[in-house]
């Protein structure tokens, strides 16, 4: 799987299509965020990155989160899940959600029901621009002018993932340190009543920002 934020048009087709997957009907496991709507129309999809050493599985006291032979990190096994939400809080990407009705952690399993039958996952099937692309490394990368990166550095934690980010620059890793703010943004915010985040970000992403269904 390849994520190219440059191509994302923020349409949330992936979010709506994710709900159609029969392993989690009606619930979407994808988030699309405005980077900063006051500055730009840019948006960014977040899917499960399927870490090679998944933090969610490492912190699970019940060993309920398993990887399959392809390295796909599955949703928590229902009989084992203890409702502790360690995984929900520990994931550096903020992906898993807790379903309080079903007492279960839920996350993307890369449409296991579809991929096991040779079909593309729902999000990558519908994505209009190829911002989310499903395919083999050797089939996708040569067609693109962006660089595949699958190392993420969160402060002291380094994470390697099965999902690649397609980046325009020559960076070897995605580094996340503190909050990134547009340079002109701070000046603007102090001068007028502009809030830290555009209201539309908050309104639309209300459900995304909660880690519960």
């Amino acid at each position: 799987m390849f994520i190219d934020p440059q191509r994302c048009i923020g349409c949330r087709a992936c979010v709506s299509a994710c709900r159609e997957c029969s392993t989690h009907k009606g619930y979407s496991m994808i988030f699309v965020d405005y980077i900063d709507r006051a500055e730009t129309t840019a948006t960014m999809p977040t899917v499960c990155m399927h870490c090679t050493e998944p933090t969610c599985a490492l912190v699970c006291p019940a060993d309920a989160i398993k990887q399959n032979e392809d390295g796909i990190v599955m949703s928590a096994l229902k009989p084992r899940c203890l409702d502790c939400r360690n995984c929900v809080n520990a994931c550096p990407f903020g992906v898993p959600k807790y379903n309080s009705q079903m007492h279960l952690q839920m996350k993307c399993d890369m449409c296991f029901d579809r991929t096991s039958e040779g079909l593309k996952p729902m999000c990558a099937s519908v994505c209009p621009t190829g911002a989310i692309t499903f395919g083999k490394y050797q089939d996708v990368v040569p067609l693109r002018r962006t660089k595949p990166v699958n190392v993420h550095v969160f402060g002291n934690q380094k994470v390697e993932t099965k999902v690649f980010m397609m980046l325009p620059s020559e960076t070897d890793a995605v580094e996340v340190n503190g909050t990134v703010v547009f340079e002109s943004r701070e000046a603007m915010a102090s001068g007028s009543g502009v809030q830290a985040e555009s209201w539309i970000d908050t309104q639309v992403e209300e459900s995304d920002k909660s880690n519960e269904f």
Partner: protein
Amino acid sequence: MSKVEHLEKIIEEFGPHLHDAPDGGWQADRVIDKVVPTHCPYCGMQCGMNLLVEKNRVVGFEPRYDFPVNQGRLCPKGVTAYLQTHHPDRLQYPLIKRNGTFERASWDEALDLVVTRFKDLQQKYGKDSIAVYSGSSLTTEKTYLVGKFARLALGTRYIDYNGRLCMASAAAGNNKAFGIDRAANPWSDIPFAEVLVIAGANCAETFPIINGFLWQQRDNGGRWIVIDPRETGTARQGDIHLQLKPGTDVAVTNGILNVLINENLIDQEFINTRTVDWDAVRDVALKYTPDVASQISGVAAEKIVQAALLYGRASSGMVMHARGIEHHSNGTENVLSYINIVLATGKIGRRGCGYGTITGQGNGQGGREHGQKADQLPGYRSILNPEHRKYIAGVWGIDESELPQAGVSAVEAFAKMREGEIKGLLSICSNMMVSLPDINRVRESLERLDFNVCIDFFMSESARYADVVLPGTTWAEDEGTTTNGEGRVIKINQAIDPPGEARRDWEILQDITRRLGRGQYFRFTSPGQIWDELRLASKGGKADYYGITYEKIEAQDGVFWPCPTEESKGTPRLFEQRFAHADGKARFHAVEYIGAQEKPDDEYPLILTSGRVVYQYLSGNQTRRIKFLVDQCPEPYVEIHPETAMKMQINDGERVKVESRRGEGVFPALIVKTIRPDTIFIPYHWGEQLAVNQLTNPALDPSSKIPEFKACAARITKIHSRELPILGRGRKGASLSEVRKGE
């Protein structure tokens, strides 16, 4: 008398209500009886999709990977489209308005009333006292039938359709320049263009699926020049963005042409052999130096030069535009000025070289070809041309003298209702109380009518004004063809039966013809039979569908018209050898900058422009009921640049009053740097107090009669929340989510 009383009760009964699950809720273990390959009901891309049917209910979709246009890709509207088929708001039986309240009626009762009232009015005031107003989200079969219905069953000259609000100016410009009205290239040509000029088209929100082709072009090393007053998603992703003042396209295009001439980047041989009238265009363009163009448009002169050099030096390139340049009182001239650039550089009629307007409505192309337009007969024939009249009269089995003369365009027809000349209306597939400009006047028109009938499958803002509402069908309950934005005729297939007593639109119209005593001309028992008559009616016309059969559409994944014979496979790319004018040559048109009819002044210092968001389709009658889509964009807002906002001390999210000479509305401010400081933007999909069309200018383009949605003078004023007028339970201008939170 068609006033709306008891609005709250109507909303309570018929919505819009938010609904967000397939019939019976989300279930993982459905047993799917059949998978029906069909297309999305929404925009002009007409993406392929499969509908999953369980016990005569559409319960999901599956990507249709094998359809070449979208290869499985869909936007969020497409993904959730199936949720409208069993929406609780669906109209399931005929309604008659009595004492201001809609009451359930039988089909016989409702149709008898319609026919009696129509006959009365026509007897008293003449045939032309009834108007028909249609739409282009219908299948081509239905649009053909609506045209025939108006001319033959009612015998009225007054028929027009909502395509007039869509791209009438592009059609007029194409006909003038090329002699035919269709996109010149299939979209599969896009990846082969070195440079794309995308003007007034926010593909990221309005045609999400075309982005697949755009990014393929980019992966091939291509560049984009985007011309738009806002830094839209598409503009952000492009290479050069010309952020012009709304309505100043002609200055920019003439400026580009000026650079092309001075840098000797024009194709003189192409101009000499394949076009006429170049000299006048050259003389005009020479006046628009980059500095002159910059002064008018507000785009830096260097950027105009850069754009001209990029497009001019490329060995291939395509120009595409949409409503942004077309919704103007000089829309046709805007279109012609872009065509001038294409013709001057000879970049047309080859792979990767071409031009096209991107059709907005699902069947915007097919719906404007076969006779539901005021002055048109099937096959893109003219009702003013004696030969054409004779041919169609022959197909219909009537005497030519029985055919009415040309009517008037949409906005003009609604003026005639206000003036009392038109007394009755049958509308289908249209929500004019959202989509027409200056809706306060449209309301007067509807209230003035003696009798108003509406065919729809949801109670739209406009249907509320009707005396009789007849329940029609969604796309999943009928079959027929549509023609997508590239001119590809595709087939919509039936997945389920209509719910309740709802009936297919063509059956409803035919029932009315029988009761009017004109049933002998309407003996169709299936859309296929209408199609066969349409094929014959279009034969020999500009839009020749004669050789297109349902079987051929299926075998070829669609057929590009013209397709004049049964052997023909259709024509994906136009103008390879010749243009469609009699002499085979394209026409240049010299155009001078005029600009919007209403320009900003001291009283109204800002330019208001309107447009769309990705989560809603047109007037929103279908999409404003689907919770997922509404959650993403629950209400319209006004985009204001921080400089302008700071001057007026307006905060992000604060509700502000936006006024024009025609009306006012209250909208939350979205303070963004992506818009020009002299311009504000409001998306248009909502009705009543949330409609930007309370403010827009109904000024018409003289050749195409398209209204000026994209530029009018406006002002914004800060208001205090205590001044917000109360409306029903919610405050005026309050969002759905706010109302819900307050409950």
